[in-house]
């Protein structure tokens, strides 16, 4: 198993304590391509952030690639984020005063790889995303789809074991969304990366091989979707 959650609980202690994850049990295998669906506020992002070690959980166990993720120091957590996990965000989260290629280089910088090698690899990945000509452009000079492809290149460049995407198509139109999903699908196949996509668009979920429904902080139905016919709107279509 790549990911194993055992009775994971998470409460936000704000003005009023909010029990968001109420005992999550979940297993995701190596190389799987799954989506997490659920209503707004059901705890999808919270779950994904815990999986990405961006946030911590209160009780339960989280096993990542056979190792228990609990009480890590910030340094160890940083190492996991750099080596094992790749992130794709709805709002892209590119650094806007860095060019596309510099953004893609950044994870390698934190891995201590030299400038030339970093640049070389980043250009390679931008090329894979069809963005060679945009390498020297700043994020605000690019379209949403292009930005998300830069972000995907940045997530892939460290050869992570899992990629976590929180509504990667949330800010994109349906055509671009489809392109991005095709890209993720290809990456999942070619690079054998475990891919977890949070979405509330059934069309997007339909592109994945397994759909996990979360409701009020617990895992509901888990659908196998190898045939990609979960979407009521038909194969290969994304309805917005």
């Amino acid at each position: 198993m790549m990911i194993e959650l055992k009775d994971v609980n998470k409460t936000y202690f704000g003005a009023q304590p909010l029990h968001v994850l109420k005992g999550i049990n979940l297993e995701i295998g190596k190389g799987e391509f799954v989506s997490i669906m659920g209503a707004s506020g059901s705890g999808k992002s919270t779950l994904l952030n815990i999986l990405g070690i961006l946030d911590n959980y209160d009780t339960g166990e989280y096993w990542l690639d056979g190792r228990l993720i609990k009480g890590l120091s910030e340094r160890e957590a940083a190492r996991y984020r750099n080596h094992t996990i790749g992130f794709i965000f709805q709002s892209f989260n590119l650094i806007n005063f860095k060019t596309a290629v510099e953004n893609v280089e950044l994870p390698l910088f934190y891995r201590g790889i030299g400038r030339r090698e970093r640049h070389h690899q980043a250009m390679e990945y931008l090329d894979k995303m069809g963005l060679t000509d945009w390498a020297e452009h700043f994020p605000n000079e690019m379209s949403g789809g292009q930005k998300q492809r830069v972000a995907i290149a940045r997530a892939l460049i460290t050869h992570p074991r899992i990629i976590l995407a929180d509504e990667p198509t949330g800010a994109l139109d349906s055509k671009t969304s489809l392109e991005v999903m095709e890209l993720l699908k290809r990456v999942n196949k070619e690079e054998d990366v475990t891919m977890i996509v949070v979405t509330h668009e059934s069309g997007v979920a339909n592109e994945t091989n397994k759909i996990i429904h979360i409701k009020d902080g617990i895992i509901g139905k888990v659908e196998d979707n190898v045939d990609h016919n979960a979407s009521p709107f038909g194969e290969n279509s994304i309805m917005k």
Partner: protein
Amino acid sequence: MFDIFNEIIGTLKQNKLRTSLTGFAVAWGVFMLIALLGAGGGLMNALVNNNRNIDVNTMQVYGGSTSKAYNGINEGTWTELKEFDAERTEENYKDVIDAVSADYWRSDTASFRDMSSNVGINGISPVHYVARDRDIIAGRKINELDIRLHRKVIFIGDDAAAMFLPAPLDSLAIIGQYIKVGHLAYKVIGVFQSNMDADLMQMDIPSTTFSDVYYGSEMYSIIFSYHGLNTEKANEAFMKQYKKDYNNAHGYAPDDDRTLWISNSVIDNLQVNKVMNIIKTMLWIIGLFTLLSGVVGVSNIMLITVRERIHEFGIRKALGATPWSIIKLVIVESIVITAFFGYIGMICGIISCQIMDSTIGQQVLDIGVQRMYIFKDSTVSVGVAIGATVVLIVAGVLAGFFPARKAAKVKPIEALNELK
């Protein structure tokens, strides 16, 4: 390191206005520090220069007047120094006193060819120059041999030389000539820089010669050099004892301390040192506080910067940035700002010190008895420059540290959720 530098240049360019404002605060702080230290150094160098002889331990004793009636002597009686006081001084304090000079003074008429003038004649021995030096322009001073041989030689000021051999003539040609003082001829052995004091032109002759010529003259002062009295206390004690012995010898009240007036170079020196230390400390304090306000400025700006960049730090953390790498980023940025603008301030400060040195540093204040520099060598030393560099880097680290720690502590998810 080069990578970090690139990162920082990138972010600094992002905020040109803020960077330059912060930079100005730091540059100004350093400029003030250097300029103050330079100016203070100039003042102190001038002070030292004006008291050039303070390294030598000498006392000069003058007569005074009684401050109390005693044994039939009225209060307010003028006291005199006598030949035997000089002898007593030489005999009785051998353990501390090295050499004694009895100084005599009177006015007389000096003439050369058809020029003549009333002048002040000092009968002195070389010890006098230890305490009250003269700047030789040409020739030499009175020496020990002159004293022993009762030579009729005379050491005159450039004012007198210029009077005897006026403008078109070379006034220094007076050396080797004979001038007349009273009814006797003296050979001019040297010319010194005169004190420009309007009263009387001064000339030195050997004390022994003086005694021969002006027999029975009143002694002007006793000057002696001494050793072994290193503290203010020891000096005070010695002076007290000296006065007491004098009073006993002359039949004045033993505890009357107005009968003699003693100028003591060590005590003057200690006082000068005290004043200098106070000035120095004040300057450092003012300078450092000015610099500190610059540093607080940087720290503040770094805090704001960190807050603004918190989302970016979140992204970096998600990509694998360790807390230490974030701290490094902020601190190095802080150091770069302080060091870069600090250097600009330092260079401006050094230039202004040079300007001070070449303008008011060259001015000489004439206060009659002495020529004084108000300013001398107001340049800062390499030591101060290195010290300032160290202070700058430390300041940069300090200014960056707290904001950096704050940045590193934020949980990545909180940073990411922070609005851009």
